[in-house]
């Protein structure tokens, strides 16, 4: 009886267990915070309405920007009310999936997956940059997508708003199923937005690939969720954490099933965060419009895997081996993606691989127990990678879809491109980890932790190597595209839009070279307008200022650290920070120097190979080296043939099986059915010859039959009488 009214509001499990170690007090939050998902949902609804009404203005963009800004404002309220004081609130929305059942023990239980929000500092940290960046990028997209004003514009902002709703569900949900709702929801929006240019087969395929590969991860996540429910009898974080706390206190051997939960959750995280072996969808996802790449495929959605691990950190900590796996997956992904990134020519793809690589760093951070480092890297990365992508997008927008770094050069000094160049530079130094940038600090935390954690030194070396490669390929882009002699070739399309008719018919322009016969007319790059420039400035400044979060406020050891330490991700048993780094002192201090030097070396190599002495856009010293190393460069360019291997190992066999199954179904199973259906007919065919048509044969049959009956009758009579 009491269980009927048990949920929500009454937190009797916590009270009953009497455990308070490691579990924070949870209060009912204000319904105000439901606005964080509700405002973007309203915007999505309105954009759908605009689409239905055939609105042909920038109204959808302004609606979205306003709603997202509102969402951001409410998140700020949540920050000051909940996160800053280190509280945890639960806001009940409505009952999503509730049903009573009887557990094996005989008592009545309620399966509860409500639409409720779990707001703690981890949630707020994530939501701050999700809503903040989403607002900025929506503003950017209002200009970027302006060629599509009309149905496409509505569609874009519908999916954009819906993405923020889903992301809010993912991050703020108070149970694992709501996380799953958001998890698949962001996957859907990613699908819709990657496939935004739906007439391009490559975009459609990339969208499909992203969704299917994510579903593979989702399968693991779903099984993990079910297993968690089996173990804890609940999907709500507070109850899971309470029970995990009991398990931690009790110690002792755990059932293997409970140990499997983190691994299964990790499968989901790998899929969403594009880690080995499920990373190949993310580079292809660059088929989507660039704002989407910036928001979804760099800053927010792909960090959902990191969020999941951080959110469920207590369960991961129960089985430390799972964290070792997390670390190795992260480290290897970082290296592999970085090597591929070195060999690409498409600047957006380079950024995509760098995203994969940086996500690897975050996983490494989680694996070596510095959830603070991972979260901080998520935070800084969100800013500078968004800036980088938006700069690439601006270039792409201005140069008719040109993304090949061999065909662009010296953009920094072209008229109207100054802000883009500077923002790009800020993003690059962050990504490269130049000393005293935000990216430098956040990467340093992870590197230092990797080196000081016993058993992870190899990973530390890999990560250090990756950091060097990162600096190289980052500045390869910058030196090739933004510095050097001014030169460009326009792309053959306008950001993937095949209907756009581009006919600037200005006079002669000395720089514009049209090699392509399809572009008989002259081409003018059009530099970005106010919206794009504003956003880029804000993001560049934000990227720089993010470094401050490492230092201030001093009493908590940095803003992010202060936030994380009051959330569920804080459970990491921090090892001794007095540990010295190869006898050189505080590892972080040492790492400042080491990683700073590595970054500078990488940049120097990039300078020597790609800027020094370069006279044209197309060639550089690196090409000569690439000739020398032979096929390895080509292998890297083809991303180590991951796609081909997957096709060979999974896709083709499945396809062959499908064909075989279909044949089997048609021939064997349906054949058997038809055989059964034909059996009466074939029996008939068997006895048909007896019907000869000859009169005397029938007569013979009659006579024979009669004789038979007589004999039988006589025998019967005879037997009965005797």
């Amino acid at each position, binding site marked *: 009886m009491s269980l009927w009214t048990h949920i929500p509001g009454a937190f009797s499990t916590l009270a009953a267990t009497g455990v308070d170690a490691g579990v924070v007090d949870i209060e009912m939050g204000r319904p105000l915070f439901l606005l964080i998902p509700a405002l973007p949902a309203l915007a999505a609804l309105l954009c759908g309405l605009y689409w239905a009404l055939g609105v042909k203005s920038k109204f959808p963009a302004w609606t979205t920007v306003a709603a997202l800004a509102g969402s951001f404002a409410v998140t700020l309220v949540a920050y000051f009310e909940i996160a800053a004081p280190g509280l945890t609130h639960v806001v009940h929305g409505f009952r999503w*999936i509730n049903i*009573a059942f009887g557990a094996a023990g005989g008592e009545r239980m309620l399966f509860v997956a409500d639409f409720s929000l779990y707001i703690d500092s981890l949630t707020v940290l994530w939501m701050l940059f999700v809503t903040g960046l989403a607002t900025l990028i929506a503003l950017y997209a209002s200009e970027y997508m302006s060629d599509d004003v009309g149905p496409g514009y509505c569609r874009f902002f519908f999916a954009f708003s819906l993405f923020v709703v889903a992301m809010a569900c993912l991050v703020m949900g108070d149970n694992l199923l709501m996380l799953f709702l958001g998890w698949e929801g962001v996957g859907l929006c990613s699908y819709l937005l990657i496939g935004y240019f739906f007439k391009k087969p490559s975009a459609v395929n990339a969208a499909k690939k992203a969704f299917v590969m994510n579903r593979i991860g989702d399968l693991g996540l779903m*099984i993990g969720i079910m297993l968690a429910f089996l173990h804890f009898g609940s999907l709500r974080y507070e109850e899971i954490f309470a029970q995990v706390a009991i398990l931690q206190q009790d110690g002792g051997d755990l059932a293997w099933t409970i140990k499997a939960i983190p691994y299964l959750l990790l499968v989901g995280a790998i899929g969403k965060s594009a880690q080995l072996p499920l990373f190949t969808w993310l580079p292809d996802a660059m088929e989507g419009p660039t704002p989407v790449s910036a928001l979804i495929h760099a800053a927010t959605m792909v960090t959902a895997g990191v969020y999941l691990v951080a959110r469920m950190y207590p369960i991961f900590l129960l089985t430390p081996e799972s964290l070792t796996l997390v670390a190795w997956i992260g480290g290897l992904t970082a290296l592999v993606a970085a090597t591929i990134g070195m060999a690409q020519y498409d600047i957006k793809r380079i950024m995509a691989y760098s995203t994969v690589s940086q996500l690897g760093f975050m996983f490494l951070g989680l694996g070596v127990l510095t959830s603070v480092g991972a979260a901080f890297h998520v935070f800084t990365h969100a800013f500078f990678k968004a800036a980088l992508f938006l700069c690439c997008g601006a270039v792409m927008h201005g140069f008719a879809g040109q993304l090949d770094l061999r065909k662009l050069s010296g953009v920094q000094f072209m008229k109207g491109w100054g802000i883009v160049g500077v923002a790009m530079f800020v993003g690059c130094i962050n990504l490269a980890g130049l000393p005293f940038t935000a990216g430098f600090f956040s990467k340093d935390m992870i590197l230092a932790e990797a080196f000081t954690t016993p058993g992870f030194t190899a990973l530390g070396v890999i990560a250090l190597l990756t950091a060097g490669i990162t600096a190289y390929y980052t500045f390869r882009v910058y030196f090739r595209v933004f510095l050097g002699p001014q030169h460009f070739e326009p792309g053959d399309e306008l950001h993937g839009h095949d209907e756009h008719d581009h006919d600037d018919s200005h006079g002669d322009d000395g720089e514009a070279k049209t090699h392509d016969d399809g572009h008989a007319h002259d081409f003018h790059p059009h530099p970005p307008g106010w919206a794009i420039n504003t956003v880029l400035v804000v993001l560049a400044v934000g990227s720089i200022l993010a470094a401050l979060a490492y230092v201030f406020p001093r009493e908590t050891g940095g803003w992010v650290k202060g936030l994380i330490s009051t959330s569920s991700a804080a459970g990491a048993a921090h090892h001794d920070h007095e540990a010295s780094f190869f006898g050189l002192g505080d590892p972080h201090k040492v790492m400042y120097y080491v990683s700073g030097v590595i970054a500078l070396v990488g940049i120097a190599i990039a300078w020597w190979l790609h800027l020094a002495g370069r006279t044209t856009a197309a060639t550089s010293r690196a090409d000569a080296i690439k000739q020398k190393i032979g096929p390895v460069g080509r292998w890297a360019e083809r991303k180590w043939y991951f796609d081909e291997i997957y096709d060979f190992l999974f896709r083709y066999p499945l396809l062959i099986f499908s064909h075989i199954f279909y044949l089997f179904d048609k021939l064997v199973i349906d054949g058997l059915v038809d055989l059964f*259906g034909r059996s009466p007919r074939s029996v008939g065919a068997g006895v048909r010859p007896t019907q000869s048509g000859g009169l005397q044969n029938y007569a013979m049959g009659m006579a024979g039959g009669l004789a038979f009956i007589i004999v039988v009758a006589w025998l019967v009579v005879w037997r009965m009488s005797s």
Partner: protein
Amino acid sequence: MTLLMLILIPLLGAAVIAFSPERQAKWLCLAWSLIALGAAVYAAFTFNWMERTGAFQFSASWTWIESLGIELSLGADSVSMLLILLTALLAPICALASFTAVQERQKLYYSTMLVLFAAMTGVFAARDLIFFYLCFEFTLAPMYVLISQWGSSNRKAAATKFFLYTFTGSIIALAGLVYIAWKWTQIGDGWSFAISDLEIAASQMSMFEQGWVLLALMVGFAVKVPLFPVHTWLPLAHTEAPTAGSVILAGVLLKLGTYAIYRFVLPFTPLAIQEYAPLIAVLAIIGIIYTGLICWVQRDVKKLVAYSSVSHLGFCVLGLMALNTIGAAGSVMYMVNHGLSTGALFLCIGMMYERYHTRSLDEVGGLASRMPVWAFFMVFFTLASVGLPGLNGFVGEFMCLLGTFQSGAVDFPGGTTGPLGPWYAIAAASGMIIAAIYLLYMVGRIVFGPLREPSDHHAHPVLPTDLNLREIGILAPLAVLCLGLGVYPTPVLRSLEAPINRVGVIAGFHDIEAPGSDETAPAHTLVLVPEEAWP
């Protein structure tokens, strides 16, 4: 009386259409099916969804054949009521969907359709075995007529196969059902075909008897579902049937099988089902994966969706075989959800077919450029079918999987008794990936990509246009329901607890606690009751 009205209204409509002019037929059919829908909605409002004992409501019975104890006995619990509502909802939708597609012999078409709806309602409302079986079998005749008269090129063969295949199965099921009735004569006083009596009779059967009865019942009902090795009639029938026929087939007719499993197999053979549920579950899982993969290589989009029905219904059967509350509730949800989303997919495909006269993925594609509204609905219902959380498909699918997962895990706080276990759920869950593969493949070809249209469409002077208001009016209610059931399924789920508990007590789920007598809940309607007032 209410339920009898729900059966008689479409029948009366059919009679009226039969004696009316040809050109009024479709309007009359629409009007009568709307009346039937109105009556069903009225019934839903007077129905007590939160009845805590799972008792049957609107019960009524009339003597039919006294010497054999056969009665015309009706009654509904919330499981039946949900499916009756689904049936009543699909009636006007099917009528509207046929307005332009069916041009010849309209009187016969529309009256046949209404008769079919009456029979299907009868199946869900029956509380007497003979009346149930009568309706169950009688659905075949109108469906046979619909397929064989208004289907596409290979319609005769498809209709014959559909009829003979399902009829053969049902005859075997009848043998099993009659055996239970005979069992009643052994323990009771003369013949009775009341389902409640037979539930008692069934409990007297030995394990051996139950095993054979289970086999007989499953043969009949598995064909109807259809379960893996006996599914081949479905793709053929779906492909050849007219659009409305496909919608009825996917929307309601297939659910007759799962409903019958829920209503008869579980309570009639409680011992045997515990024993053989893993076997049936394995068949369901094979069906999920095997037919899912087959979907991937289909060139005919209607056949693809038809095969996907087989795959999806596998989840439904799996949920039932979990023999616990969550699995069974998920299965019932799945029945409703599949009816909505797959029915809508067939409607979308029918609308495309009306414009292009082809369903081949090789000939048409990229229709989002030509028909954005159609594309929106197509993508929407595909996503509902994929099982995206927030849309209806997910709720049923997740609960079927969770029910399977927790079934038999007696040592865990969240586990229940039951014959299955996590491995079944994990194997079935791989169907999630396969569903994503084939459905997105379908959408990627037919909705997205470069525009491809059949080369001979120039024969038509006008280019195909986007959906008109009538077609939007058909799809929009379904879309709203899909979204509604995906976002707020809790009231429906809570209303399912009590009837499933009732079946569970008989079927020996062991995961339920008989509802206490102190739980006296006031009468509630599903829609209007505030959460706070729920028991």
